[in-house]
Each structure stands twice: as C-alpha cells, then as structure tokens.
C-alpha cells in the first residue's frame, strides 16, 4: 500500500521549483513496473494459446486507441473516481470501507425515485437536488457502520460488507415491486428495472454519440474539493491525525470515534454520488448490476492513486480504460475475464511496488544535493 506521505506538505508544495529529473523518474519507474506486470500477463496468455500482442493491442487500443474508446473509459472512470474519493477519506482515517457497492445502490435507488416525484421541476434544480439526495442516501449507508464502530466498536469491514448485501436485496425488492417500470408491467414483461426518468433529469452528454456525461466534470471538481478538504481544513487535518495515530489524537482532544464515523459517512456519500451519476448520466433508470463492481474497483483505483484525491483522477482513468479494454479483449480474443482481472491485479502490485523504489530514489537524490552543497561550501 502506498505510504501516507504522498501528499504535498504545506510550504514545500508551494514554493519549491519543479525538479524535472524527479518528475521523469516518478513517471518512468511506475511505467517500468507496469511493463513487467504485462510481461508476466503475456506469459499467462501464451499458456492459454492466445497471442499476447493481439490481446494487449485490444486491451490498450480498446480504451486509448480511439475517441469513442476514450469516452467509454471516461464513463467508467467517473464512478471509479467518485468511489475512490470516498476511499481516500476513509482510508486516511484508517477506516476500511468495503461498502462501496451498497452505498452506490443507496444513491442509485434515490436517483431512480426522487426525479419521478418532482417531474415538473426545471432540470438544473432536479439534477442538483438528486445529487444531494443521493449523496445523503449513500452517507446513511456509510453512517450506520460508522455509528456501529464508534458506539459498539463493531469492525467496519464486517459491517460494510453486510450493508452491501442488505442494499442488494433491498434493490431487488424495490425494482420488482414499488419501483418497477409501469411500462414493463403494461407490456407484461415485468423486467426488473425502474421507470425511465424524465429527460429533464438526465445529466447533459458531453460528447454526442457517447455516454460521456457531465458527471465526469462533477467528479473532477469534487476531487479538488476533497483535496482541499483533507489538506486545508481543520476537519481534514483531524481525519488524517486520527488515521495516523489515534492515541496522540485522543490526547490532543480529538474525538477519535466521531471522526472515524464521519469519514465513513462521507465515503458513503461519495459512493452514493457514483450511483446517482450512473442512473442520471448513463442508464436513465435503475436496473440490476448498476454498481458494475465500481465499489470494489474504486478501492483499487484510490490505492493506485496513492490515496490522494488528485492522484485518484489518472488512476481512475487508467482503470476505466482497462475495464473497457478488458471487455473488448474478452470478446475479441476469448480470454476468460478472470484472467484479465488477474492481469489488472499484477499491474497494481507492480506499480505500487515500484512507487516505493522511486521514493527511495528521491531520498538518495536529496542526500546527493547535501553532498554537493558540502563540497561547495
């Protein structure tokens, strides 16, 4: 797991000039790690009698070879980033949120219901209130395990996983019952999906002919907001303090359980937003499989981005792209999707591992600078 000092620290971040050698190394080493991972993946592919070059061409080309592929990658990156932002907050407080899936569902349920109640509202009002309500729904799903942890010391890994099952069953129930699409009932198909939302509730599409929507912009803005929140506000400071040393935080008068619960609540809210964006931006209704596994992949993306909200942006795009590529690869070269998952896992392992190397390198470089200044003075 990347260490916690990925974040810029006050002054250094603002005043020091850019050291290009460091920048190059910081990009080159993770890339090398990625190459090694792909090489191992290639060996696995050869065992399955698949030409690895073809497979990788599809994997990369699928997402990053065309504009529509890229748009698809960004569509998937959006919920990953939103979930990842919540993960950044929770993990910084040393709270492990495995409940992304359930929180996404909570947000999505709200997004499938709320706009139907207020059809006549203007679009901007309808969309913004839905975003807020979805955030709230997700945060309730995070708040419950948070409260259980704070009050009864219930392990949050356990409780968030259970909340996932509860949400999944609740959704099953609702989209077959109260929320079921009346059109399906009328046609006698009884498809397990909710009613199509009125068009004024849809998030505007950014690129015609694609699913890329304004949710992506919302996610990027929120990444900046979360960054400011964690490193520039008192609440963010306390969340990080609690995560790094609960003893010292308690001695400093910080209410440790409160901030742990708060971080889970916020994490739930961001995952809830991912659900809203999927419904308002992509599907325009709630249907089974709405979470797309983003609740889990978002964790990986956040870790990959060094648990830094801004780092989560490129990480989400990369993983969004890999998901798109993996889809296409599966269809094009008939590779079982579990193998693709394994290769993605390798990539994470090697890139995170290599980031430790580049940190060591940075430390050595600083020492050389000291040596030089000694020699000069």
């Amino acid at each position, binding site marked *: 797991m990347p*260490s*916690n*000092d990925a974040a810029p*620290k*006050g*002054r*250094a971040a603002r005043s020091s000039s850019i050291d290009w050698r460091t920048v190059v190394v910081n990009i080159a080493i993770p890339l090398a790690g990625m190459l090694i991972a792909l090489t191992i993946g290639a060996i696995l592919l050869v065992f399955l009698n698949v030409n690895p070059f073809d497979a990788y061409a599809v994997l990369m080309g699928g997402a990053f070879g065309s504009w529509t592929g890229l748009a698809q990658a960004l569509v998937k990156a959006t919920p990953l980033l939103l979930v990842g932002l919540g993960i950044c907050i929770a993990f910084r407080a040393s709270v492990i949120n495995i409940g992304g899936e359930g929180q996404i569902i909570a947000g999505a349920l709200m997004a499938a219901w709320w706009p139907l109640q207020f059809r006549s509202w203007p679009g901007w009002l309808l969309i913004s209130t839905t975003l807020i309500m979805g955030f709230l729904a997700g945060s309730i799903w995070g708040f419950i395990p948070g409260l259980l942890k704070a009050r009864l010391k219930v392990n949050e890994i356990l409780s968030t996983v259970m909340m996932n099952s509860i949400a999944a069953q609740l959704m099953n129930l609702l989209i077959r019952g109260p929320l079921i699409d009346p059109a399906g009932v009328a046609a006698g198909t009884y498809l397990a999906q909710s009613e199509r939302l009125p068009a004024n509730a849809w998030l505007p599409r950014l690129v015609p002919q694609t699913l890329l929507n304004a949710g992506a912009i919302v996610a990027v803005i929120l990444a900046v907001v979360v960054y400011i929140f964690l490193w*520039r*506000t*008192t*609440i963010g*400071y*306390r969340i*990080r*303090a609690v995560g*790094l*040393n609960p*003893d*010292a*935080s*308690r*001695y*400093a*008068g*910080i*209410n440790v359980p409160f901030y742990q619960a708060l971080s889970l609540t916020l994490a739930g809210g961001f995952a809830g937003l991912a659900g809203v964006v999927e419904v308002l931006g992509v599907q325009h209704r709630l249907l089974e499989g709405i979470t797309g596994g983003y609740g889990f992949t978002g964790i990986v993306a956040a870790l990959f981005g060094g648990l830094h909200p801004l780092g989560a942006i490129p990480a989400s795009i990369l993983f969004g792209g890999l998901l798109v590529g993996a889809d296409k690869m599966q269809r094009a070269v008939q590779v079982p999707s579990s193998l693709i998952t394994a290769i993605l896992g390798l990539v994470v392992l090697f890139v995170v591992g290599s980031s430790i190397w580049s940190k060591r390198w940075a*430390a050595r470089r*600083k*020492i050389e600078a*000291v*040596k030089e200044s*000694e020699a000069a003075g």
Partner: protein
Amino acid sequence: MPVETKAQSKHRLEHVEMRQIVKRFPGVLANSKVDFDVRAGEVHALLGENGAGKSTLMRQLYGLYKPDEGEIIIDGNPVVFHSPADAIRAGIGMIHQHFMLVPTLTVAENVILGLTSKHEPILDLDTVSQKILELSRSYGLKVDPAAFVWQLSVGEQQRVEIIKALYRGASLIILDEPTAVLTPQEVTDLFATLKHMVKEGHALVFISHKLHEVMEISDRVTVLRDGQVIGTRPAKEMTRNDLVKMMVGREMKQIAPQPIRSGPVRLKIENLHTMGDRGTEMLRGINLDIHGGEIVGLAGVSGNGQRELAECLSGLRKVTAGRIELDQMDITSLPLKNRVESGLSYIPEERMRDGAIREFSVQENLFLQDHASPQFTRGIFLDFPRMEAFASKMIREFTVKTPSLDTPVKNLSGGNIQKLIMARELARHPKVLIAAQPTRGVDIGATEYIHERLLMQRDAGTAILLISEDLDEIRTLSDRIAIIYEGNIIGIVDRNEATVEQIGLMMAGISMEEAVHHSA
C-alpha cells in the same frame, strides 16, 4: 539444547572499531568522519546533545543503517553489515531508545523471536525459559519468562531486552539511553548488572544524558557534537564541568529559582478516586491545591498513581469519585478538549506514542490542539502563512533541530521530538500545566532550557504540577513537594523543609511525622 543460542560457542569480541564514519540524511549530516572504538571489558560512553548523531552512529554498528563512508573493523577484520541479523551474528546487540518488544507475546516468546528452533517448526519454550532463568540468575536480571510483555513495567521490559541480547550471544551490547525511563532504584539495579557484564568480558556502549551516570559507569567517554567527535577521554580524568563544556561548548547556569508570592488556588483536587487499568483502585482520595505561580512536585515511586492522577486531571480517565476545579470551575466531567480550551495543558509521559504523530510534519505536530483556534483558521480553512510564522518562531525559541518545518517528525532525533512537544504545550500559556517527566531523554542544554521555561511559566501565574522520577529535578524546581504513596498524598512539604532522606522515607510509605522522627 533445542534452540540455537550460539552464546557459548561464539568467540568473544576483543576490539570493535568504527573508522571515519560518514552518514547523511536528507538535509542533515548526522555523522561526519567519526572514529569510535570499544574493547572487551570496558564501558564506553557516548555523549552529546539531542541530534548530535549518537543513535545514528550506533545504528550503523548494529546494521540498521549502512555508513555512506568509512568502515567497521572487528578484531582487525573489516566487516560489512547488511542488516541487524549480520550484526547479531557478529556478536553485537542493541537495546534501543524505544523498546522493540511485541506486547501480546510472553517474555520467552519475545526472546526467541526471529531465532530458529532446533526442532523447527516446534518451539521448545520450556528449555528457552530454563535458559532465560539461568541468564537472569547469573546477571541479576529479574524476569518471569511466562509473563506477557504488556503486563511488565518499563524497567522489566528493559531487562527482557538485555536478556534477549545476551540470549543471542551478544558480547558487545549497545545501550541507547537505557536509564531515561528507569526509576532511581532500577538504575542502581541496571548498573549492578552492567558492571557484572563488564567483568565477564562484555564490551558495552552506554548512551545517556545524565552526566553523573556516565561518570559512575564508564571507563571512556566520547563526546559528539553536530555529528563530529569532539574528543575521547578516560572518564576518570573528567569532571562534570569538563563534560558539559565539551558537549555544549559552554558552562551551564545553576538554576536557583526565587520563590514568588503565589496567587489564588487555580487547580483544586478534592477526594479524587479512580480505578487503574487492571481494575484496582489506583487513586484513593487525593486532595491537593495548586496555586497560580507555584510548582508542586509530585514525588513517588512509579506505579503509585502518578499516571492515573495525570490522566484524571487531563480528562483521559474517568473519575469514580471526587472533584476537580480549574479557576473555581468544576471540570470533573468535562472532556479533554474543553479542559484544554479552559487553559489546561498536559505533557504526557509516553510522549512518543501519545504526544506526536510520527508521519505528520513538524508544523502539523505543533498544532495538534490549536489547529482550530481562530488565530490559525479562516472558517474551516487552515491559515498556513500564520501557522508557518508561528511554527518557525516556536522551533527557534525551543531550539528544535529539524531540517525544515515539513520534515516528518519521525526523522527527528528522540530529544528533539520531546522539545517539540514541550514547545507546543508551553506556547499555549496554560493556566494549569501538568508536566509528566518533562526532561526525560532531553540533553542537558535543553533540560536547563525547559527548567527555565517552566519557571517562567510559573512566574507568569501558571499552576504547575510536576510529576518526575528525578528527585533532583523536583527539588530544584518545586515550591512544594507532595509525596504520593499507594494512591494517597501522604505528605506535602515545602522545598526547604525536608531532606532527601525524609522524602525517600515518605516515598516508601512512612508518614511525615515518622519520617521527620526517623531521620532526626
């Protein structure tokens, strides 16, 4: 024997040398061409101010860091240690400034941690315990092999660390500030053990900030300053003042505080009761008033309720009965945060764990309590320029040695972390200050400085409760001395009223009248 010990089989180290050692950290030259050597049968003390590079030098000898330049020579042969495992194999052991035991394991399990058993994968703990008891008998190190480490006092934990080193057959043992956490009695016991070890032909490196200890135990002394060797001398030829001059480059002032007229009662403790961690009553009706402008020293053998009292006063531990008032305001059930806002400061004893966040920067650590004060915020946003200005001022005033404000605290030397916490607590100009072992692990220059600051704070009207195991410190600083015994204050004396012997007797539970009678 079922577990590999190597103790007997290994040859004794005769002469270990470090030559021209250079070690750099980002922004710091921690050791600069250092020569150091130690022989079998001697104690070589390493002295120097906080951040002088003592721990760094010894960590290289123990294989934790690799020297950037220079070499290590054992009995004439150059060696390179890639890890502590190599150093241990060569017969070197180290007792760290901060212990490295696993609290949830027993003593025996800790001792063999990392060793391979002859009957791998089966542990033969009985034979291990046997061997531990043997070592413990022959070196006078009392420990129970079956006890869990979390149950042990600091002194006991240290004995476990020493046994661990002996068990691994170490013939050179490095002790990094071993006495900083010990009670005076424990120090006496430790020294008896060390003297015995030297007689057996062990070589010892001893690091301490307490000069009288260095003079008592060591044969040679090496003084480091800013990473450089100032000199190596036979201990017998040196006076305390010589050592001070070598260490800090000047002489120390004698602190002789003038008593001042104390003001009204600021901290009032009435009939305070509380339970300890193990469910027994640790405070049994404490009564104590501390006036503004007064330092009350709390003397006592550790474990008589000092820690619990400090925790009750700061709001970390629930009071079962009684009352605490700060400036006539009842704070008995206020949470810590509100007490801090009402003007209470607390310097905790376990500062490394409870007082600082290792991964946070120096600046972030300086604002653990006050980051939300209107002075340093705009709304919910932190005001960095203001924080920075204030932080640099504190660092300068309290002479905290750090490459920058952004350096993570874990890269600072032990004593400098202590100073940083002190700076934070005193800069708040508290109404009431609870200081637990405020100069533990701090060099003499900084000790002098901290004493001065405490007195300044007193003169400014703060009521100070000074909890310390260093009776000299208590006697130098306190206006009154309260003696705690088994959860009760069994006597309060004025500074000049009682002799050391009388205080010592009272610490052993003898009442004031009897104590006066005894020593008369």
